[in-house]
């Protein structure tokens, strides 16, 4: 940690010792006379060359053990009663699973939602929500741990982690030893298209990502995922660059240039509606998440066949693969139930039901076997490319990971310029 960071952390620590929360302390520093001296440091340094709070930035080939914020709960405690609150994206959890959990542990289960991970973190940090378990993505985990928003977990309550979860995710690179998280669902980023509208054999192309730059005839019917990471990542993959966490200005500038060219070629929509727009035919070619492709059946117009739905991704080390997690907020008053929830959602039957009956996002569970799902017709053969195998994770895979503060600004500015259509 640099001297400047230490100076700031020292000031924060002193105020925290006097009973302030970390956030209150930072506000006080900025507002007070100290702000004149320290606030430029706050804005200039932010995460410095490291991750939030000076923690190292995790990468698939550079695993990180996160520091322990206090102790996990003891073994063998009884579950609490009352209302158990789950914090998650909307439409990312089967209601039946919530009901079953409530029934099993005799509690009321409530779902509170957030629109995106920024909102999730902000609400947890500001104590705007009183929740017992939260969904979180690995790229925000370091931030949540540095901000002391999460509670370490006790594995004795979660036997399903070792018994059912894919080996690479039992101790993932972003949380060595699974100190704070258990995995939830996984997905790849690729290309979704309708074979009745798109004539090219995308999977057979030398560079399938280039289809977006050659999609003049599909103008108005193409789409890009509305995310700085995914959009810029697409342009990087188009150039054969698989370092999707690059902070090299030249690489980002090139990606921006390519995205600006793409707007002229195919005028893509920038949204996250591919799960709906592809089956409904309002888009024909869309950058897509594998989980959204598997949801197509819920949105297919009546009487139409889903056989036209196609998905391609580049495979391990050539395209992003991501997973979501569950973590326990530090403020929970039901930590035992939170652990039991983690174990419950990692139960093979529950995970399968959640996947097949509702989310379309594949759980990282050994028993949810890809080959079997395709063989028994649960997943149609034409979308077998959307299925993820355990070995797709681990060293050599590529994921969008936490960037430095400077890197985030660079990516956001480039994305803002792309979105501006200028």
């Amino acid at each position, binding site marked *: 940690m640099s001297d400047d960071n230490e100076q700031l952390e020292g000031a924060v620590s002193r105020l925290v010792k006097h009973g302030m929360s970390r956030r209150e302390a930072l506000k006080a520093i*900025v507002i007070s006379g100290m*702000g004149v001296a320290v606030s430029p440091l706050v804005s200039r340094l932010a995460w410095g060359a490291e991750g939030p709070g000076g923690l190292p930035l995790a990468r698939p080939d550079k695993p990180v053990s996160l520091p322990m914020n206090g102790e996990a709960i003891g073994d063998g405690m009884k579950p609490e009663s009352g209302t158990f609150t789950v914090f998650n994206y909307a439409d990312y959890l089967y209601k039946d699973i919530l009901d079953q959990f409530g029934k099993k542990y005799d509690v009321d289960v409530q779902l509170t939602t957030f629109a995106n*991970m920024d909102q999730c973190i902000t609400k947890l940090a500001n104590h705007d929500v009183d929740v017992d378990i939260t969904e979180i993505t690995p790229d925000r985990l370091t931030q949540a741990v540095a*901000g002391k928003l999460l509670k370490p977990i006790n594995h004795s309550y979660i036997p399903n982690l070792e018994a059912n979860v894919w080996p690479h995710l039992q101790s993932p690179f972003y949380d060595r030893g699974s100190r704070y998280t258990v995995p939830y669902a996984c997905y790849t980023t690729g290309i979704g298209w309708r074979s009745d509208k798109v004539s090219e054999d995308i999977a057979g192309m030398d560079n399938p990502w280039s289809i977006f730059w050659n999609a003049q005839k599909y103008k*108005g019917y193409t*789409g890009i995922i509305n995310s700085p990471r995914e959009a810029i990542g697409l342009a990087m993959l188009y150039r054969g660059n698989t370092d999707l966490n690059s902070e090299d200005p030249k690489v980002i500038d090139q990606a921006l240039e390519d995205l600006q060219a793409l707007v002229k070629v195919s005028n893509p*929509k920038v949204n996250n509606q591919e799960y709906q727009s592809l089956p409904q035919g309002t888009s024909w070619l869309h950058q897509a998440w594998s989980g959204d492709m598997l949801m197509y059946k819920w949105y297919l117009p009546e009487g139409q066949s889903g056989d036209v739905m196609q998905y391609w991704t580049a495979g391990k080390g050539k395209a992003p693969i991501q997973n979501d997690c569950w973590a326990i907020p530090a403020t929970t008053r039901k930590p035992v139930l939170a652990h039991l929830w983690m174990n419950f959602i990692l139960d093979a039957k529950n995970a399968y039901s959640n996947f097949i009956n509702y989310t379309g996002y594949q759980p990282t569970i050994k028993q949810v076997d890809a080959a079997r799902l395709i063989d028994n017709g649960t997943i149609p053969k034409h979308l077998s490319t959307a299925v993820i195998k355990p070995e797709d994770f681990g060293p050599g895979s590529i994921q969008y990971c936490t960037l430095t503060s400077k890197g985030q600004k660079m990516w*956001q500015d480039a994305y803002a310029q792309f979105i501006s259509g200028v």
Partner: protein
Amino acid sequence: MYPRWLWKACAFPGVFWLVLLFLVPFYAVVGVAFGTLDPIFQSPIPIWNPVDWNFGGTLHTLAGFLPGNTYWLVFVRTAKYIFFAVSISLLISYPVAYYISRHARSTKVILLVLLVLPFWVSYLMRMLAWVGLLAPDGLINDFLIWTHITPEPINWLGGHAGTVIFALVYGYIPYMILPLVAALDRIDKSLIEASRDLGMTASQTFFRVTLPLSKMGILGGCVIITLPMFGDYYTPRLVSGSPKTTMLGNQIYLYFHGGPQPDVGATMTMVLAIFLAFLMAYYLYSVAKAQKDLQ
């Protein structure tokens, strides 16, 4: 006799409302624009004391508004869309308002109720209804194909400026009609009768009496719809989604929505507010001038 303070007290709820829901939030935006970030969560920490404000990032953002730069170009695009949307709204609204005010005797109340009716449904829902209607397999394309006007569905939602302008017109037009009806209602009919008695034709009466006297209604309606249109981000998002139709509101939303630069979004909000304040000042000046002319 009522005590003098009573009338001043009547203004209190309005002033309180203004301070609580406009001035304080706006100062918070200013505080964010010149503020800093939580070093871990990267959420904005407003700086309330102007002595401590950071100007470095603000100047960088302001540079984006210089002619030829990104925000300038987005601003120009936004202004163009709004100019067309307001002009079309006025062209549609004026005859409607004129009819309601002058000719719709027994049906006036019903027509006014019908005008207010869209307010019963949320703006978002009304826009989503249009998304359904304009979709390639929507009712409008079905009709056009059925009538052989077009052999193929027209992709209205494929990222066209025209669709965004149409949606803005549709979304805001009731706000234009109502002040126009009120302004036309206020015109003293004896002035119009005097004009006709003095030999003016109907069209001369309209252009030389009615139209000038309804100027304040026109300006009021334009101001009422222009202000929210400048901050609109969901209309282009819903009916287009293409970068080519991005408005300034979308850029502000992007920076506020997440990431490490909420100060950029706040600065853009301030720039927009200052621009709109000039528009508002012109409106107030016109009102004052018109009142003076009448005296």
